[in-house]
């Protein structure tokens, strides 16, 4: 564990918790830093939708296969078990674990061997979980688990940042806002991917870069772009694809590895 990196991460995280706080971008930073700090291959954050399922709101990589793998745990997997029990759930070797056959098969195919899920707990309520994937088998380091849990706790607090924590209504408002922001971002990713002929994870990077450069919330930019009130420009030299209605097939972009 790199103590310097850890304190820098918390400075970076608290820096973003200012006015105009962008919860999706914050959670994206948090999952990215989790990967570096905890020496894991991928991290994802799932929140419980009051309708009754876990949904991915942020991940260290926007690779479609990785997002799917996190989302799969709405059916079965360590994240779901962690969410239900409110306790950390880990597996040191998915290949030898029989608890989640569908999840283990999909995770194995994506190249992951060990998984750790840490609860996001607020008082007596579990609102989601932080999910860590590692490519090599083996138990997770105890210290890393502690830091991971601290990051999960920070993620929980961030959801309540905008308003007072005393109101019982606040949490549900914030959860729904985060989940809906994520939907807007997916819509914007699709629109930009189609416009520039790129894949959706590249589109996410472009959206996020522009939002950061213009000091704008990612979800606000995504909404304005989808509504057609704000342009998003790709890096110079980005090829433009066929306009709507033309019949040239588009090249299928390579799927980035998770």
């Amino acid at each position, binding site marked *: 564990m790199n103590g310097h990196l850890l304190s820098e991460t918390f400075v970076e995280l608290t820096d973003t918790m200012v006015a105009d706080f962008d919860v999706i971008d914050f959670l994206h930073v948090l999952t990215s830093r989790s990967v570096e700090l905890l020496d894991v291959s991928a991290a994802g954050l799932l929140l419980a939708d009051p*309708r009754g399922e876990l949904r991915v709101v942020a991940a260290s990589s926007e690779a479609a296969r990785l997002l799917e793998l996190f989302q799969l745990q709405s059916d079965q997997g360590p994240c779901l078990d962690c969410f239900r029990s409110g306790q950390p759930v880990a597996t040191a070797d998915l290949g030898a674990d029989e608890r989640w056959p569908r999840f283990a098969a999909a995770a194995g195919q994506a190249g992951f061997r060990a998984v750790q899920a840490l609860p996001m707990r607020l008082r007596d309520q579990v609102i989601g979980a932080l999910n860590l994937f590692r490519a090599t088998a083996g138990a997770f380091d105890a210290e890393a688990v502690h830091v991971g849990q601290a990051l999960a706790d920070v993620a929980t607090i961030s959801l309540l940042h905008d308003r007072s924590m005393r109101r019982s209504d606040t949490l549900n408002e914030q959860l729904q806002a985060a989940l809906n922001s994520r939907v807007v971002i997916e819509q914007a990713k699709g629109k930009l991917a189609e416009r520039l002929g790129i894949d959706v994870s590249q589109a996410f990077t472009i959206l996020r870069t522009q939002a950061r450069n213009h000091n704008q919330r990612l979800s606000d930019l995504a909404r304005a772009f989808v509504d057609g009130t704000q342009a998003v420009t790709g890096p110079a030299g980005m090829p433009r694809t066929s306009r709507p209605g033309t019949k040239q097939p588009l090249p299928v972009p390579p799927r980035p590895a998770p």
Partner: protein
Amino acid sequence: MALGSPVLAWFRGRLAAPAVRVRDARRLGRVWGLVAEHAAARGGRVSAADACAAVVPGVRVTGAWLSAARDGQAGHLMQVTDEVSRQLAELQLTLGEGPLFDASASGGLALASDLAGLETGSRWPAFAPAACRAGAAAVFAFPLAVGAIRAGVLGLYRDRPGPLSDSQLGDALVFADTATMLLLDAQDGAGAGTGPGEGPGGQPAGLASYRAEIDQATGMLTEQLGVSITDAFVRLRAYAYVNDLQLAEVARDIVARRLRLFPDPDLSPDGGT
């Protein structure tokens, strides 16, 4: 519950192309059952107004109202279940503030379980006391939204303060999703809502869990078809419905660029699947 078979068939037909994102089939079944019962009782086709009326007993609130919007334009009041609901809806228009404004602006919920409380008072200084005078003690507003798609807002009120329970909140969200779907279908004659009949045969209930591809595909279709996000979603669902496909499958093919849709209202398959 006794459901007329045309009504049941109507709902079955929608399972393949749900706007409703829920895994809990029992919850969805219960909510849709209540909505359908309401439509059957008045002898009409199922509409968003039925979702508004059915939510009142469904989540044990005193009253509800529903206003429809299209592409960000100001909504019109479609349904009120009682006089207090009408006053609450009108108050917000007059005062220019309130939970419905917040819900439609943010696309998130606006929940005020105690209108007389200090925080609610500072959030809506004009609306909160006026709503109390009108007879409401708690107001809950649900945006009828899917990301940037906004179909309207569903408002609920109670004459006693107190939050919705977790399960009432979950049910209310499913009522709101159902109203969203019904409003979107009603907006487009070519949409998935053009008439009851047998749903796609042999479809397992398409209660697939949330899929990012559906949102991504909707975004891609705005470019392919040159339409708004709302119309893109209507076209996506109509395509799945007409071609007897799961919405998630169609979305996946669009995102993988195995399928393109074209601006003409051509709902036949135009690419591989």
